[in-house]
């Protein structure tokens, strides 16, 4: 996709224009994650800030000896909606029952816990090698903080910080071109980290043991 954009950029640059491109991100996994479900009823709340989170990034080209040349090509990444799609799938594979909540305090007594994910940052850049015929690698990073509240009293149990990253070589592409430019993989990496780190967090472990004891569920 970068090369198509570059050819178009060359034409448009001659006309003094810049290119804006809305990147389509499909973070959903083709198979359910290989993960054991816990029998708990979980609520999820996505804030408007989370859902509407987008980042506009300028494409950097690599010049001789790693020189960074800003181009007039801009990509807009819909990080919030892409994160929601994957978080829905991930949470669905971690717990047996999921309810989407309209607000952070909306009828939380019916759920065992409530998750509220927030995006801390999203970064996307071209990393240029230092050799004379410099080549670039696209690098994407995303960071989330995911709050876990105890269902009935909305007491904050834990806040998990998870980061995901990915890198991808720009490639000539004519068929079946992927549009993600490493962003999808970075989001998937962060969510994978969340799934594993969640179980290891001491506060979560303590909460789990009390919760499963009171509800009679077993992990």
């Amino acid at each position: 996709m970068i090369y198509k954009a570059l050819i178009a950029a060359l034409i448009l640059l001659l006309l003094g224009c810049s290119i804006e491109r809305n990147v389509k991100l499909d973070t959903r996994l083709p198979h359910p994650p290989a993960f054991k479900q816990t029998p708990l009823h979980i609520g999820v709340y996505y804030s408007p800030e989370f859902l509407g989170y987008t980042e506009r990034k300028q494409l950097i080209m690599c010049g001789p000896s790693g020189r960074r040349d800003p181009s007039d090509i801009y990509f807009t990444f819909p990080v919030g909606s892409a994160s929601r799609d994957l978080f829905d799938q991930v949470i669905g594979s971690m717990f047996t029952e999921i309810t989407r909540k309209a607000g952070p305090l909306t009828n939380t007594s019916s759920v065992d816990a409530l998750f509220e994910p927030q995006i801390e940052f999203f970064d996307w850049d071209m990393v240029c090698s230092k050799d004379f015929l410099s080549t670039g690698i696209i690098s994407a990073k995303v960071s989330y903080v995911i709050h876990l509240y105890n269902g009935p009293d909305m007491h904050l149990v834990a806040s998990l910080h998870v980061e995901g990253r990915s890198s991808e070589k720009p490639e000539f592409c004519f068929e079946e071109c992927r549009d993600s430019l490493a962003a999808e993989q970075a989001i998937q990496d962060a969510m994978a980290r969340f799934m594993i780190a969640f179980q290891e967090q001491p506060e979560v472990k303590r909460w789990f043991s009390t919760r499963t004891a009171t509800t009679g569920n077993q992990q």
Partner: protein
Amino acid sequence: MRSLAKPIASLSIFLFIAACTTVQTQSEFQNSISLSPLDNVVLLSNLASDQDFSDKDVDRCIRPAMFDAAPELHFIPAKQFRENLYPYFMPSTTPRDLDDYRKILERAEVQKRVASLGVRYLIILTKGKTDEDWHGGILCGAGYGGGGCFGLSWWDRKSELGLAIWDLQNKSRAGSVQANATGTGIMPAFGLPIPLYMPATESAVCRELGSRLGKFLNGQE
């Protein structure tokens, strides 16, 4: 200028003769193995530590020589393996040591997925880099009557690759293999700089490693 051309030409010829790619290999295999026709192999890059080699690069590098050495091997695409084993084997969740592998492979859901894919051996990149060191010099100039370059450059190139082999059925490390290749490239300039020899160190390492791994999985080593 003519007085310099002779020594440079002689040096070029000497370096051209001296320039060749040498490969060194180290391998350590735990046990000889017998692969059943249902056992598959998967080749993975290490997304956690290596940006230069993607799954596709590792596949392009290793698979052809492995297949030449052991045509009966069946490969599962890295993408299919990663998609089935999510959330494991992502950049942040790739297991690093024997304990990590055991922890993951003991999970029932993981065992089910590995079994359904029929993957017996996972071959994962542990090290992959290529370094170049340039010497000599080429001077270029231009005037009203034209332009050109004159001089001689040569560069030492070293490629190193290492791979670990994990037996997913026995939850153990089956071995590791590393290779490095060095070579010198030459680029004289008599008017235009034209490389006379470019050392293909990376493909030499790939061929050597692929061949070793193919023989190992074939029970020949």
